[in-house]
């Protein structure tokens, strides 16, 4: 018997119904957004006008599918590019942070640890505007006093990367640190004791142990970067990532089912990635 579970049938059924409703609630908007990707209409709204794949592959005017839409495709490549760079950076720095906080002793460690998690609770908008403002200050300073044009400090891909990096690093640090905390330091000592050099220990024992966490930190970072809006919006230049492109499309141009198609694509893509990362975690840790 599971003492945690309700014992009476009525309660149990109410509980199960609630669960069901909750999952329906979770699925509803996604299903709705997904379904209209296949509606043969120029609106993502009822009535249903028949099934079509045009919103994915169409190439003629009112129905240009996402795979023939240059701006969407460009947004996607930008997102991909930003996502990979940002998560790689966040994983690298996150690994350093994990080692720093799990392995090292230094003054003010607690204060610095709080600082490390603070970005997680700063609203994304504020990270966005503050980095925009700060970068502009430096760039303006350089321009007025040194006559230097620091173009990379103006809104654009570089600032988007910095902006996303600023809070993603907290997440990757926490994920990696959690795994590192589970690492039995005596494994490293054992390796040293068996004659391995420090570098070899890192490469053959510590990093392989961290690998699942590194991988899932990367995936999580990538997915969050891919979908980030609040921070990115303030920092984009001309090379906007997909969410911004979609948003612009939605509010400045108007939505057609091509946005539903993109949504389907994103759902499938991220879903697969998420499952992959969970599986990777499980396979390696489920010893």
């Amino acid at each position, binding site marked *: 018997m599971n003492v945690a579970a309700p014992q009476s049938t009525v309660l149990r059924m109410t509980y199960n119904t609630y669960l069901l409703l909750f999952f329906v609630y979770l699925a509803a908007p996604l299903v709705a957004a997904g379904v209209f990707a296949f509606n043969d209409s120029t609106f993502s709204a009822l009535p249903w006008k028949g099934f079509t794949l045009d919103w994915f592959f169409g190439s003629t005017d009112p129905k240009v599918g996402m795979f023939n839409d240059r701006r969407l495709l460009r947004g996607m490549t930008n997102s991909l590019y930003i996502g990979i760079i940002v998560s790689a950076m966040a994983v690298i720095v996150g690994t350093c942070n994990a080692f720093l906080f799990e392995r090292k002793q230094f003054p003010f460690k607690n204060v610095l640890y709080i600082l490390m998690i603070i970005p997680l609770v700063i609203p994304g908008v504020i990270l966005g505007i503050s980095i925009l403002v700060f970068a502009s200050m430096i760039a303006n300073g350089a321009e007025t006093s040194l006559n230097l044009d620091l173009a990379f400090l103006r809104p654009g891909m570089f600032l988007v990367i910095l902006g996303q990096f600023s809070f993603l690093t907290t997440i990757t640090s926490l994920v990696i640190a959690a795994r590192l905390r589970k690492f039995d330091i005596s494994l490293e000592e*054992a390796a*040293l*004791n*068996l*004659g*391995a050099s420090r570098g*070899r220990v890192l490469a053959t024992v510590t990093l392989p*142990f961290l690998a699942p966490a590194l991988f899932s930190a990367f995936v999580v970072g990538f997915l969050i970067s891919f979908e980030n809006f609040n921070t990115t919006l303030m920092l984009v230049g001309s090379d906007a990532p997909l969410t911004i492109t979609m948003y612009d499309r939605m509010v400045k141009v108007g939505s057609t089912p091509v946005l539903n198609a993109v949504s389907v694509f994103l759902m499938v893509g991220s879903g697969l990635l998420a499952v992959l990362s969970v599986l990777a975690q499980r396979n390696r840790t489920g*010893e």
Partner: protein
Amino acid sequence: MFDLESDKITKRFGTFTAVKDVSFEVPSGSFFSILGPSGCGKTTLMRIIAGFETPSEGDIRIKGKSVLGSAPNKRNVKMVFQHLALFPMMNIGENIAYGLKCRGENRTDIKRKVTAVLDRIGLPGVEEKHVSQLSGGQKQRVAIARCMVLEPDVLLLDEPLGALDLKLREHMKIELKQLQHQFDTTFLYITHDQSEALVMSDNVAVMNAGRFEQIGPPEELYNAPKSAFVAGFVGDSNRFSGKVSAISGGEARITLANGQEVLAGIDDKALFLGAKVDVFVRPEAIFITRREKAAADSPQTLLKGVVDSLLFNGANSRVLVRLEDSSLVEVDHRIGQGEDRFNKGEAVLLGWEMHAGQCFAAKG
């Protein structure tokens, strides 16, 4: 020639001294144990030997050469960790091959050696298995094999049986001792379990609060402890506190708080008349008789008590006797040997041969 020598090793962490002035030598091929309660500094000492800590003072010599200057990965002492520290991301073969690879040996040699050592520990053919597929005792052996394949000068073992369950622990005690014979390597073994130390070792050092209290073969520690700590820690003991009321030669007469007198052997030259002392007597050294029968026997010490309870435990059964000052004394009691079974509440007399009592100055 000693495989391992520790020369006045001291280790301080900040103001706290974890290891104090510890010196000992381990002869080649012998099984040396360090026995002490939790936190007494055993692991610290072992980590100093392995090179994971630098001693604040003193020197460590392996095969006569100081190793203080060598990094941990350059010392030819291998270590079996408390929780074994087998690499979970490698299979058994890779675990054992790890040290050989680090040394840069070639593949065929490695393969041959791995196979050979697995045979030797009685686990042939487990190379491909995953660590999690082995039982506790098998893992234990693999951890030893992983070190032995490197032919270390000394094998260090840090409470390797701590994580095993009772029955397996009993079994592994015997097996470890046999492995040591088989490999004929010097073992330095750490434990807080006195029975492990006693059963396996050629020599045991008893450690307390960073110091070695006594070094000697198991029988010596058990039968002739040199300090109250050793007497209390090694084997079960009953302790009686009192004052020295007479000394003659190696014998003393001690008056207990309740006014009764006991006799004990005395080693410590510093004891004087009126000194507060503790007398330690092992449960198996105590005779127990019904009071009415007392005249018949004549042990040199006689204490009055009442049977409080019987702790039946097969060959290790005990009688708990409550003395007049209401303290409890444990007395060994083999059912069916000698006297009949005692009953709760019976009035009894306890006694022991004088030299079965060990007398030490009381602390504080």
